[in-house]
């Protein structure tokens, strides 16, 4: 399987067009190759197998079980976003458009859990 963009190749796509203001249009930034995609798929599979495996072990009763699963899940999430969604290689504007709402979403989730969980327990 040939790669569409080999490492070290030019970042500018043949279709790219530079206008009078020097802004480049239609450029496709450097994307990972087949080998990278294959390794990412393998890593995601291994982590998923690991998640399910620890679910069936006595480690499930350990207090580190939940943080471990959350870390593994976050790692898989970040790997897909960085490599398959090309956020590692694409424009910073896309990163802002995704990470901004994601941070707001995380804050909202934690706040709601705190309000309905921790505070609700305290107030009865």
């Amino acid at each position, binding site marked *: 399987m040939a790669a569409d963009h080999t490492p070290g190749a030019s970042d500018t796509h043949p279709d790219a067009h530079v*206008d009078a203001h020097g802004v480049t249009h239609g450029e496709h930034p450097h994307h990972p190759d087949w080998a990278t995609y294959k390794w990412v798929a393998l890593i995601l599979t291994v982590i998923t197998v690991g998640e399910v495996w620890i679910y069936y072990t006595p480690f499930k009763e350990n207090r580190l079980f939940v943080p471990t699963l959350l870390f593994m899940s976050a790692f898989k999430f970040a790997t897909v976003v960085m490599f*398959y969604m090309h956020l590692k290689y694409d424009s910073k*504007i896309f990163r802002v458009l995704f990470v901004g709402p994601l941070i707001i979403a995380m804050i909202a989730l934690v706040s709601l859990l705190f309000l309905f969980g921790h505070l609700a327990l305290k107030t009865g």
Partner: protein
Amino acid sequence: MATAALDSHALAAHHYSSTGLDNKKIGIWAFIGSECLFFASLISTYLIYKGHSITGPYPHEACNPPACATPLKAILNIPVTSMSTFVLLMSSLFMVLAHSAVVRGDRKYSKIWLAGTALAGATFLGFQAFEFTSFVHEGLKITTNLFGSSFFVLTGFHGAHVTAGVIWLITLLFIDMKRGLGPRDAINVDICALYWHFVDVVWIAIFTLVYLIK
């Protein structure tokens, strides 16, 4: 003058913004950002209501009388869901390979990988249909308890997103078979791929938070 007119015409056809980035791609990332908030609200609701169901069936614990009229086992089927999770993860690999083939102008492999992605997505939906059906047979409906309501809404909305993605993929496959997808269409496949990978990452979160964590 004529060159400038041609250039502006070409730019209008490609819909580039003043940032030099394609409007469609900016749009899909903004949409994905809003979807983060949407799914965060559904996941929050599920987690807030987790463990607050008065009647069974429960996700991880067996339910015995008097809480349940008849003894019920833990309802979540981890082996089946693990398989469907693996299928969805592999569909993401097929999707990047489809995009790669379209960028190269490889019409044979673009069709193969697009069909593979759509098939994997449909398989995931089959697993979900099996899961929902078995839950209903075991007495868990959307109105049964808090777990049922929050679970079916969360996973149902995710399934609806997967369904939309499969329809989108089949449309691209149809276009590919009709006239062929080439490097000029890469942006259209790219935005479909971004949507598909987002659906995958949402499932990564759901699988851990709903299925694996008690």
